[in-house]
């Protein structure tokens, strides 16, 4: 059997084993689910990446332990 014939046979086996789902229809309105999903939308605070929080934490700790650095930081800003 050639590869081409073999491939055709595999295709036929696949079609025989797994029925198409063309007639499958949506039986209910999904809008209520969609509204729930929209309500779960995270707040803007939750959208800030974790590394931004980490950077802010490190900066805050540095300024707490080395308050003398505050003027230098303000100068560079």
């Amino acid at each position, binding site marked *: 059997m050639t590869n081409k014939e073999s491939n055709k046979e*595999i295709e036929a*086996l696949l079609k025989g084993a*797994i029925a198409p789902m063309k007639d499958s229809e949506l039986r209910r309105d999904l809008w209520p689910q969609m509204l729930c999903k*929209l309500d779960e939308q995270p707040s803007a605070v939750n959208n800030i990446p974790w590394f931004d929080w980490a950077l802010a934490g490190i900066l805050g700790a540095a300024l707490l332990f080395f308050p003398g650095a505050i003027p230098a930081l303000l100068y560079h800003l």
Partner: protein
Amino acid sequence: MELLERFASGDLEAFEALFRQHQKEVYAWTVRIVRDSGIAEDLTVETFWRIYKSRARFDPAGNFRAWARRIATNAALDHLRHSRRETELPEDLAGPQTADPAVRRETCERIKQAFFQLPAKYRLVATLALIEEEPYNDIAEAVGISVALVKVRVFRAVRILRKKLYSLVAGVGAI
């Protein structure tokens, strides 16, 4: 203002109107890929969630249906990638036409196993092209690849299945 323009500018009522217009179609496309009605419903909602989040990038002059189908395909592909071995096919399968029901069951089972082991991107195009018999153009547009690449992926999927099922084909051929 047109519906699509209102949607792109964040109007929730316009989004609801589009959702109601297209939910059946998105579901029908998704269920063909994932082959489970419950999962397809969840993925339909996920698709529209992605659509809503990306509304600012949508061109109101563009084709919403094609855009939605492409997002639905990506959502379904993500699902296939993360749950390849857990999803079960429905039980009402036609089954290959062999004389012995035991052989037929065994054949079905092995085909299903081999099919589930396909990489997600091959399984996606194999499902749409070989089982659902969707036109290659539609598949290419939905996946965002060329028609030639769809053909390549179908060919590779069949080749992988052939390797896995070689002994099975030989067995069925002898019946």
